[in-house]
């Protein structure tokens, strides 16, 4: 029996306990996908999972029946390497068949190793090259406002991604144009592909940087559902300013032996580690019995 049966869709705003269980189930799903697809990035996938679960299970105005509804909120996973987190949540919410998850990173799959809009047209855009999502999101927000559309635009980035100058070009643009429909979330797991983001950014504060660029910003524990819910409830933080959530997270969050280790940016878990992780999580992948 899968946990889908145990965890029916929540009728209203789900509680913290429900969301936490959902996040464990999604983590189990992604770990299985990494193993089956022989692709890594689990550290980044697991660190942002709680954020994605909260966004897609009650906060974003998106509907699997009308995935291209004109007033839908736009969500961009700018850190495209964490795509299994998005794929699993989209499948769980009915945006794509759960069976597709088993094809992740296979030849011609609709779910490639970095999200491709040609392969999966319900995406707002392809991603995989860091530093594009916020710029695209600000363009969307500008265009939506111009036509009187009140849809919100959410861009999930990594902290390593904030090394890119283009992120700050976009941040400047969003503030200059008062794009308060934009929510940037930085998955601040502290890990980059090779080093630690704090060291590479000179031990400076991302929240202060966004504030200096004219944004309203807050820092939360991005692996704490109550924290995430409180931050999302406060959006937009200030009228006339874009909002940024610096979500302090742990790479590989939720699985003891994957936590806070750079190696899990690359490592694909062998089957015994998958089993160990699923046991720790107390959850099974949604696409496997």
């Amino acid at each position, binding site marked *: 029996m899968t946990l889908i049966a145990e965890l029916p869709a929540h009728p209203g705003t789900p509680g913290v306990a429900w969301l936490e269980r959902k996040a464990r189930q999604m983590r189990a799903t992604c770990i299985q996908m990494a193993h089956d697809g022989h692709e890594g990035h689990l550290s980044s996938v697991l660190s942002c999972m709680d954020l994605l679960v909260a966004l897609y299970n009650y906060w974003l105005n998106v509907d699997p029946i009308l995935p291209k509804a004109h007033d839908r909120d736009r969500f961009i996973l700018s850190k495209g390497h964490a795509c299994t987190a998005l794929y699993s949540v989209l499948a769980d919410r009915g945006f794509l068949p759960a069976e597709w998850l088993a094809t992740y990173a296979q030849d011609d799959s609709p779910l490639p190793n970095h999200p491709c809009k040609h392969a999966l047209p319900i995406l707002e855009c392809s991603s995989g090259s860091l530093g*594009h999502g916020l*710029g*695209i999101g600000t*363009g969307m927000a500008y265009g939506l406002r*111009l*036509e009187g559309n009140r849809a919100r635009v959410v861009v999930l980035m990594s902290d390593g991604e904030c090394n890119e100058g*283009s992120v700050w070009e976009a941040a400047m*643009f969003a503030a200059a144009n008062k794009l308060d429909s934009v929510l940037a979330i930085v998955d601040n797991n502290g890990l980059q592909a090779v080093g630690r983001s704090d060291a590479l950014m000179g031990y400076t504060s991302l929240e202060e940087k966004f504030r200096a660029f004219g944004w309203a910003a807050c820092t939360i524990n991005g692996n704490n559902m109550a924290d995430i819910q409180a931050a999302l409830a406060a959006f937009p933080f200030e009228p006339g300013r874009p909002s940024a959530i610096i979500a302090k997270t742990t790479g590989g969050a939720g699985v003891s032996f994957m936590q806070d280790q750079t190696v899990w940016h690359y490592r694909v878990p062998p089957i015994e580690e998958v089993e160990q992780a699923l046991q720790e999580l107390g959850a099974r992948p949604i696409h496997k019995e």
Partner: protein
Amino acid sequence: MRRAFADTLFEMAGQDPRVIFLTGDLGFQVFDAFQERYGDRYINVGVAEAQMICAAAGLAFEGWRPTCYSIASFLTGRAFEQIRVSVAYPGLPVVLVGAGGGYTYASSGVTHHAPDDVALLSSLPGMTVVTPGDPDEIRQLLPQMYRLPGPSYIRVGRFGEASYEACEPAVLGRARLLREGERLAVVSSGDITPGVLQAVDRLQAEGLSPLAYHFHTVKPLDTEALARIAERADTLLIVEESVPSGGLFQSIAAWRAEAECPVRLRRLGPPDAFALGGLKREVLRARLQYDADAVYAACKELWTAQRALQLAA
């Protein structure tokens, strides 16, 4: 050409309410009328080319028809990866406008040179690449670019260039016959074409009659026209203001090889080198041997050589 661009853009925005203009902090006073008339459809992004392209992609995803304007070297070189990933990969209908492509800004130095804009943009799948020769071609071609389903790039020169006479209108994707003739075809692209025509007109006054074709659309290459030209001429003199790799000459050379066409090809244009010295554009073109005098001399030599070959046969 800048004025022709600004005027045509203004007209297009009047016809299509989705047309929206982004500039990388360039075009002082050139777009004042646009800004006044269309308000928020004018966006000065600042000196931030990457952001200009990504924002244009976001706008295009939402159904707008963005036009991005900057100096060609910064637009195509600095923001190349944004153009590749965020505009070309999804195939969005964004019109990219490179002010001063080639060596328009010759005297401003290497930082402002863009002899590689055509090669860079032509490397992208689905990108239409246009290098008009005069202001009139901008007026004719730009509206056609807005009807494309995918991305396009257009080189725009300076202010105040004269327009030239041609035998037919400018149609996007089609080579344009500028001067009727025979045996030798001068094939050019971009705003060096008025110089080419000076040379051709001078030759025609002397009784020599080369054909002149303008390939304002470098990509896709009009291979049908090439086949027609090759039937009427045994030599093509290709004049381009582009680096030798990836420009019109190489495209035509590749076509010639694949089509197994026996036509002879010659090239006039800049070499594979940075153009140092801060030369004025006309001086640079003369020194690098692709100005009107150089075209005239090359045509004369080729014409005479052909004659000698024919006599020998």
